[in-house]
């Protein structure tokens, strides 16, 4: 099969290159960041769709803390409290563990003990530092549409909670990256705002095992003519904006497929074996990311941002089983992925982090589940993570207590998405001077570095 690639197609295929160049000329002084360090770095976002119940991901294990937790979560029928004895202690380097992980996060406990895993407490969508009092008295601006899945997913991905942003902070980081053969943002989770920049567009790839390429061309004269006509139609200047966007999407895909299709077969991959026996979607996505990182030099990639996702965290009912099953998929997949980065010699150059819509109410809802809440705990993983530590302030697990704005256990966040994202972006190579281009409201917070990377 032969596909001719026109100049326009090549430019589109390069994604960030041509477009970012035009953007920087528009913005005048916009600098490309992350050029000083020649080494490889990657951010891997794991989005837990539906609103992961952080209250059962990290649980106090000390007597007083667990007792408050169990009282609010309920231990009888319809209750959500995990048994104290089942929790996996998160022992710090010295001293006793104050917190434990959900019992199905066995592999993550191992990573914690290896110093590769950190936990960031009570992060959320904000527009300014906010307390329960200032929130309830309306003396600070509120994020739009709190407790709504779609809006909160978007705001975690955009870090712009006062608007319907059309770009995400992953894409905005990519806006400033130098050109590369492939788009620097690769989603294994389809189109998500996180991946879209002002000028850069993501490449969306299937999870391991999925096909990526155009079929039906055997090199015959008839097939070549058909391909030619297809190319011609894609290259025609059209007035309709949706047609244009559809043409561009096809052009980018065809250009990228030439480069990356061989990598996606997994043939000759040295990392596939680490995922043996893991059949979940999240494992197949992370395997695909591993293969691409393994081929980073062939692909000419020096900075990459990946998005993978796991669905199903909207546990309004039967939460203990459902979240448990999801964690049983997530934990070994993250471990296999971390092990892959170790084997590839890039463990300290790849940082993996979670995002999710929101936390869930500490108080159970009818049906053995929980409802939508706000501030939530997140996991950060990698060789560059200052692991075996927690960051931020753990909320007081008390219904109607100092962190709960609704009486059902919805925590007012003590850290902003902006700060969490800034810590990751800075490590990735965005200078402090350039941070506001990625995270416009970062200046509202006392620090842009939560300290979990370095």
């Amino acid at each position, binding site marked *: 099969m032969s596909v001719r690639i026109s100049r326009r197609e090549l430019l589109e295929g390069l994604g960030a290159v041509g477009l970012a160049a035009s953007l920087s000329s528009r913005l005048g002084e916009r600098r490309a960041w992350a050029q000083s360090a020649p080494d490889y770095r990657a951010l891997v976002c794991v989005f837990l769709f539906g609103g992961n119940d952080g209250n059962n991901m990290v649980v106090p294990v000390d007597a007083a803390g667990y007792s408050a937790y169990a009282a609010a979560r309920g231990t009888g029928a319809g209750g959500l409290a995990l048994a104290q004895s089942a929790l996996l202690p998160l022992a710090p380097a010295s001293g006793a563990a104050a917190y434990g992980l959900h019992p199905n996060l066995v592999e993550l406990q191992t990573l914690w003990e290896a110093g590769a895993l950190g936990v960031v407490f009570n992060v959320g969508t904000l527009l300014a530092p906010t307390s329960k009092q200032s929130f309830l008295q309306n003396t600070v601006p509120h994020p739009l549409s709190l407790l709504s899945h779609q809006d909160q997913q978007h705001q975690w991905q955009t870090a712009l909670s006062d608007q319907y942003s059309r770009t995400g902070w992953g894409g905005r980081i990519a806006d400033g990256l130098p050109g590369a053969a492939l788009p620097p943002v690769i989603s294994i989770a389809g*189109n998500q705002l996180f991946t879209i920049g002002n000028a850069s567009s993501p490449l*969306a790839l299937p999870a391991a095992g999925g096909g990526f390429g155009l079929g039906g061309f055997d090199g015959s004269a008839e097939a070549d003519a058909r391909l030619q006509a297809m190319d011609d139609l894609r290259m025609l200047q059209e007035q309709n904006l949706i047609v244009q966007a559809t043409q561009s999407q096809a052009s980018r895909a065809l250009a990228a497929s030439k480069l990356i299709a061989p990598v996606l077969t997994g043939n000759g991959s040295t990392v596939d074996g680490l995922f043996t026996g893991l059949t979940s979607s999240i494992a197949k996505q992370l395997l695909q990311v591993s293969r691409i990182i393994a081929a980073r030099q062939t692909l000419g990639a020096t900075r990459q941002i990946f998005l993978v996702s796991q669905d199903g965290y909207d546990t309004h009912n039967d939460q203990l089983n459902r979240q448990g099953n999801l964690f049983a998929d997530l934990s070994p997949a993250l471990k296999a992925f971390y092990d892959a980065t170790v084997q590839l010699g890039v463990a300290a150059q790849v940082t993996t982090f979670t995002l999710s819509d929101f936390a869930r109410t500490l108080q159970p809802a009818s049906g053995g589940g929980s409802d939508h809440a706000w501030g939530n705990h997140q996991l950060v993983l990698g060789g560059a993570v200052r692991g075996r530590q927690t960051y931020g302030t753990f909320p007081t697990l008390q219904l109607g207590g100092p962190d709960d704005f609704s009486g059902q256990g919805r925590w007012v966040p003590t850290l902003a998405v902006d700060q969490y994202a800034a810590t990751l972006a800075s490590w990735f190579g965005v200078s402090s001077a350039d941070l506001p281009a990625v995270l416009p409201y970062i200046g509202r917070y006392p620090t842009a570095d939560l300290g979990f990377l370095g």
Partner: protein
Amino acid sequence: MDAETSVPGSGRRFLLLSLLLALGCTSSAPPAPVSLDPETVRFLEQSTFGPTEALASQVKAQGFSAFLDQQFAAPVSSLGSYPAVLQGPAQVCPAGSDAGCYRDNFTGFPPAVQFFRNALSGEDQLRQRVAFALGQILVVSGDEVRSTYGIADYQQLLLDNAFGNFRRILEAVTLSPAMGRYLNMVNNDKPNPAAGTNPNENYARELLQLFSIGLVQLREDGTVVTDTGGEPVPTYDQSVVQGFAHVFTGWTYPTLPGATLRTHNPVYYRGPMEAVATNHDLAAKALLGGVTLPAGQTPAKDLGDALDLVFQHPNLGPFIGRQLIQFLVTSNPSPAYVARVSAVFADDGSGTRGDMKAVVRAILLDPEARGASKIDPDFGKLREPALLVAGLARALGVQSDGVFLRNASAAMGQDVFQAPSVFNFYPPNAPLAGTSLVSPPSTLLDSTTVMTRSNVVYALLFRNIAADTTVAGSTGTTAPLTDLASSAADAAALVDRLDALLMHRTLSPPMRQAVLDAVNAVPASDAVGRVRAAAYVLGTSAQYQVER
């Protein structure tokens, strides 16, 4: 109003197209297909699963309004009859069961296959389109409600009520046990202080946010009301969600035939949910707009009053109307278009609010749907996967048992009746990157699926898809293309015929030339091969896939 006389500019455009055709077409092609009326073809793209030459001729003769009347009266198609399966997979499909056992009893696969069969050949095309749109607004997914008969009954309910009143649709959906299971209204207990549990908020929240009024206050034209600081004004707050959550307590699954009503009936999806007064919260409930329902009402009275409030809310017309426009006509309707539809939603002309027939008629006969807006840069919509594959199959005379069409739609990201969440396959406000537009279906168009879409078109045209032996009655999917092949000796005639049928004569000269080149590369002796080449190039083009 006669829609066909209210199309500004279309006459001139038609003349121009005729001139181009006359210049480019020097053959003695069969004239009949080329006479297909472009505006009728467009109308059928919006009101059916896609035009066929026969249907376009019929509708051209009878007129749009008469066609709508005929469609409103057409008998409702059936998604099939499925026995109530009361046991779980372990009992129904023990080890050694047929390969399709789980799929045929616990997923939406069987009704989805029937959905495509009906889309291909059912007479009630408009009802099917509207029900499909409703099912993507009032979402229940087989991804979570793992019951074939439950999913089929729910989707049939939408078909049955598609041309009724929206108040009735709201109530039928609210009391559907499949919805009850999906969003946890079934067996939703009143507050239990001893156990420390609250009523479940899931249905309450999504009813308001997704099924009726949305998060922010809207004007009749669908634009957002903002406060003095420029921020959108919320429609309700968390306390209202909790009020509705308390309203929706005390309902359980329908009582099994021969059984007695219990507080928590066992799972059963046939018929509406049933009230259990003793499990209903009796306190007063603060709802929308400062209205508080008094204490002590029955479950049914509370529910009816709450749905009345939602139904009367001024957001309902623009919120639902705009989405129906997006599903049927265009992703970015003008505020004036939305306002015209909202006005009909509010009053069908005889004082009735929520009359779906009137709303659908208003959407399809609106000057913006019918008029010169079609050439605006922001007009139209990307064909969602189910419509892409069904539309091509109908136009090209594909013979299918529905299995391949269902599978193809799923591969392109739209697994019919199995949406990934209550937010459907895409949100109505999904931004189109690089523009200021929204394009909900483009959410499903990424660098992987854009090629999948081409591969699906290829398979539809070039492969004979064999029967799936695990599906009862499967016959496979084939595209004989014999009728179109009768025009293929003359490449120009073939392209003209497909231009009329697929593109309602919008092929530009360079586009037409490109297709002609592909056709001419196939020897005239291979008539079917010529049709395949032309239909492939057109069907995979962005110009076709974005319906305008």
